[in-house]
């Protein structure tokens, strides 16, 4: 057991511990903070796997974007100091059993399969390679999904604005007329 292994298990413990706290704590803001720690732990796991680019993207998008967004929506919809209702005990037991069974089952499958053919080749993709292949039009290029995803993002952006926009006086009048 060397340093690297110890670091891996520490990161794993952080990810899982924070995740468990995130889904069980009754204070919603704390839940968001535990989710944040879990996501940071996953970024650390990517750093440990030496895929720094994905790690950085993970932090930018999840921590800088999604968690901030979630925290904002908490600010807008919750009162400070209020606790969420505790789920029913039967429901908790049932869900916990389902989750444990699922974990056991999947892990059993993984163990059964084994994944023994681990190649020893080093895996150190540079940002250049990632960029070139993502935007290439050759057989392993990802330009089409890239473009589709950009369209999706644009649509999502427009959709969000439309959904979250407050109705103006004009629309209210318009809707009132429709009712009549």
């Amino acid at each position: 057991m060397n340093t690297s292994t110890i670091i891996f298990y520490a990161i794993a413990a952080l990810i899982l511990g924070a995740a468990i706290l995130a889904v069980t704590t009754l204070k919603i803001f704390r839940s968001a903070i535990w989710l944040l720690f879990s996501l940071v732990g996953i970024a650390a796991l990517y750093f440990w796997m030496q895929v720094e680019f994905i790690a950085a993207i993970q932090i930018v998008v999840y921590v800088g974007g999604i968690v901030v967004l979630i925290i904002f929506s908490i600010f807008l919809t919750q009162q400070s100091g209020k606790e969420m209702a505790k789920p029913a005990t039967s429901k908790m037991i049932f869900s916990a059993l389902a989750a444990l069974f699922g974990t056991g089952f999947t892990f059993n499958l993984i163990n059964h399969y084994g994944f023994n053919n681990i190649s020893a080749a080093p895996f150190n993709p540079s940002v250049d390679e990632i960029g070139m292949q993502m935007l290439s039009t050759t057989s392993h290029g990802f330009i089409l999904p890239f473009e589709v995803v950009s369209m999706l993002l644009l649509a999502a952006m427009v959709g969000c604005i439309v959904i979250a926009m407050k109705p103006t006086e004009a629309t209210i009048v318009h809707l009132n007329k429709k009712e009549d």
Partner: protein
Amino acid sequence: MNEVPLTHILFVSTALFFIGMYGLFTRRNLITMLMSIELMLNSVNINFVAFNKYLFPDKLDGLFFSLFIITIAAAEAAVAIAIIINLYRSHQSIDVDDATEMKF
């Protein structure tokens, strides 16, 4: 780091997935449900990156998949939160049990 077998990383991602599932089952608050979904998406990402690294180190497809998943997760979260805020405006609550108009 080759001392850590792939199965251990997969165990982390599996556990993470089912923790997210547990959260999705027990929580009734839309924001916390969204958080649980994020955990599940992340567990999938870990799998993609780990498989790419351990099984196909000469390719980059796993990385791309995880990049796209991250992007879509961002879009999904943004839309979800817009819906949540709209729901809060009309119902003064973001509990899923309170939004029952569409039930028949």
